[in-house]
């Protein structure tokens, strides 16, 4: 995976997608194999990547802004300074006016955006996103695709995106790796290559449909 690329991993449940991300995040030590980011091993060394787990995992006792700045605080940045950096981003993440809201007061889509903002603010070159939109309804999801692309285009960092939704992977990614069921191996790789920013009617495009058929065939085989 190259710099500033958006790469997706698509595979059935239980093929080890989430496990791989946890290894890359440094919180899970594998029994065998290597994992490197920027030429350095990340095994057992957390803090090198920006990891966003499946659940939004906002801390219920922190307001929106304090949840977003959690990573900076853990790295020793003064809370006031971390907030100053986060405030301008609230607008772009659609959270303006909600900086003092408790997580319980936010909708599912907003909670995911707070979690994403928290991940972006970690200032790592590699983002690991584990089914960030898995818990959202279909309409909110569509809106989040366009929004995520905008945010990502703004300061292109490398994204490794895990999902089991083929359309989601093709809509968002530069490249899609298809994984087999246990044990998960890459069985096919699709270069997506549509120009950005992408539009919502992309899913009707003939090339898109062909790619989707190919990924589904790889998953089924």
């Amino acid at each position: 995976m190259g710099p500033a690329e958006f790469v997706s991993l698509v595979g059935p449940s239980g093929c080890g997608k989430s496990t791989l991300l946890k290894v890359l995040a440094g919180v899970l030590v594998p029994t065998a194999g290597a994992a490197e980011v920027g030429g350095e091993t990340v095994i057992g060394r957390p803090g090198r990547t920006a990891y966003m787990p499946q659940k939004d995992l906002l801390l219920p006792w922190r307001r929106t802004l304090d949840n977003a700045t959690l990573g900076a605080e853990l790295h020793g940045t003064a809370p006031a300074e971390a907030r100053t950096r986060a405030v301008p981003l609230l607008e772009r993440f659609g959270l303006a006016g909600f900086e003092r809201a408790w997580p319980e007061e936010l909708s599912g889509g907003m909670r995911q955006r707070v979690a994403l903002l928290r991940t972006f603010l970690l200032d790592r070159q590699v983002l690991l996103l584990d089914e960030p939109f898995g818990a959202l309804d279909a309409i909110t999801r569509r809106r989040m695709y366009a929004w995520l692309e905008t945010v990502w285009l703004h300061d292109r960092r490398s994204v490794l995106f895990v999902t089991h939704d083929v359309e989601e992977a093709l809509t968002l990614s530069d490249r899609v790796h298809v994984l087999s069921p246990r044990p998960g191996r890459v069985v096919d790789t699709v270069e997506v290559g549509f120009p950005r920013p992408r539009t919502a009617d992309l899913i009707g495009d003939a090339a898109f449909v062909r790619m989707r058929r190919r990924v589904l065939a790889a998953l089924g085989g």
Partner: protein
Amino acid sequence: MTAVGGLRRWAPATVLLVGLVGAWELYVILRRPAAYVLPSPGRIGEAFVESWPLLPTHVATTVAEALVGLAIGAVAGAGLAVVITAVPLARRVLEPVLVASQTVPMIVLAPLLVLWFGIGMSPKIIVVALITFFPVAVSTTSGLTGVDPDLVDLVRSMGARPGQVLRTVRLPAAVPAFFAGLRIAAAYAVAGAVVAEYVVAQRGLGVFLERSRRSFQVDRIFVAVVIIAALSAALFAAVGLAARVASPWHVTNKAEEAP
């Protein structure tokens, strides 16, 4: 909470209480038991008024013992919970001792404490602390260890050290469990102080109880019982209120604010 909501919430308990007191009064009127066996609620009310000048010093002493003991028990219980969670060896060493400490009846321990610490307030405070630290320690420990492991993984992925994990995730997550334990402890604190005073003391509701018993003033015993119950309930409610103040993020009672 609206006035109507409050009425709806408290009405059933009030009706039950009034009914029971009424039945009691009726029984005394009809069967006329001796006043030193079962005084009527009305008689207890009169005894309350008669003993009013005596009560403040006793109540103040017992309340002070209960509050100081509860505070010590809460701090010790929460501290032990943190140690048990953070140091695996401490768990294996301390857990059996903690359980064993609860198997010693206070009525046995209290005279010994008097022997060691005199007849002042300190043995009573120790009894209250010994009673109250246990529920706090057990509940807080389960709160600290029951944190969503994904939350712990998340902050670890951000490079948090164990101390930071404790501070940013485990401790705040355990606040509700701490208060749940403290509520149970609060319900026992006043009764614990009274039991300790019963052994030997100069002032306190336990002393008032013991004197009333020796002089067969059963009505005054009931006065003490009512006061102890009221104090316990007040302390229990106060802890509940503190729990709500300490966790302002629980907004489920409020109206929907987010679109």
